[in-house]
């Protein structure tokens, strides 16, 4: 799981049927200043600028799509309010 920032979203009218209706957000890991643009299915209605938790897991993909075998593994599973290191 990675802490990421939502930096945008993607408009994709043509996508896999199991992703139909899913909002896809552009996310950037907090520890990366640049690099390839990563996207994740939004399971929590995160807004642009939100700090979020992104999971790379087929089980998370199954949870948000309702499909047993989803074609996605990148999912925003939570919005982070606060982070504290002990």
């Amino acid at each position, binding site marked *: 799981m990675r802490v990421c920032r*939502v*930096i*945008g*979203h*993607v*408009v*994709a*009218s*043509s*996508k*896999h049927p*199991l*992703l139909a209706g899913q909002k*896809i957000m*552009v996310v950037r890991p907090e520890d990366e200043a*640049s*690099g*390839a*643009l*990563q*996207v*994740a*299915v939004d399971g929590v209605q995160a807004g*642009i*600028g939100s700090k979020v938790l992104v999971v*790379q897991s*087929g089980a998370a*993909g199954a949870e948000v799509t309702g*499909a047993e*075998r*989803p*074609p*996605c*593994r*990148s999912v925003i599973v939570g919005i982070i309010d606060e982070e504290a290191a002990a």
Partner: protein
Amino acid sequence: MKLAKVVGTVVLSQCIEPFRGQILHLTQDIDEHLEPMGEAEVCATWAALRERDAVIVEVAREACNAFDPPLPVDAAIVGKVDEIRLG
């Protein structure tokens, strides 16, 4: 999942049975300036796309699930992007 651009097509002269007739595209990741970066990757796709189309690529085991029956691939194009809106 990541954003990429289609930069070509791959044609197999011989292949294992599940790949027969399967469309394969070469893609390259894109950066925040929407410019291609890094090395090209071969992705299976459910539809023929054109060069320079922006696409959503899923990798690893879940890429198989884009196909019915599942195709033994580790990268698949799962969406064609109309617009990328960066905030």
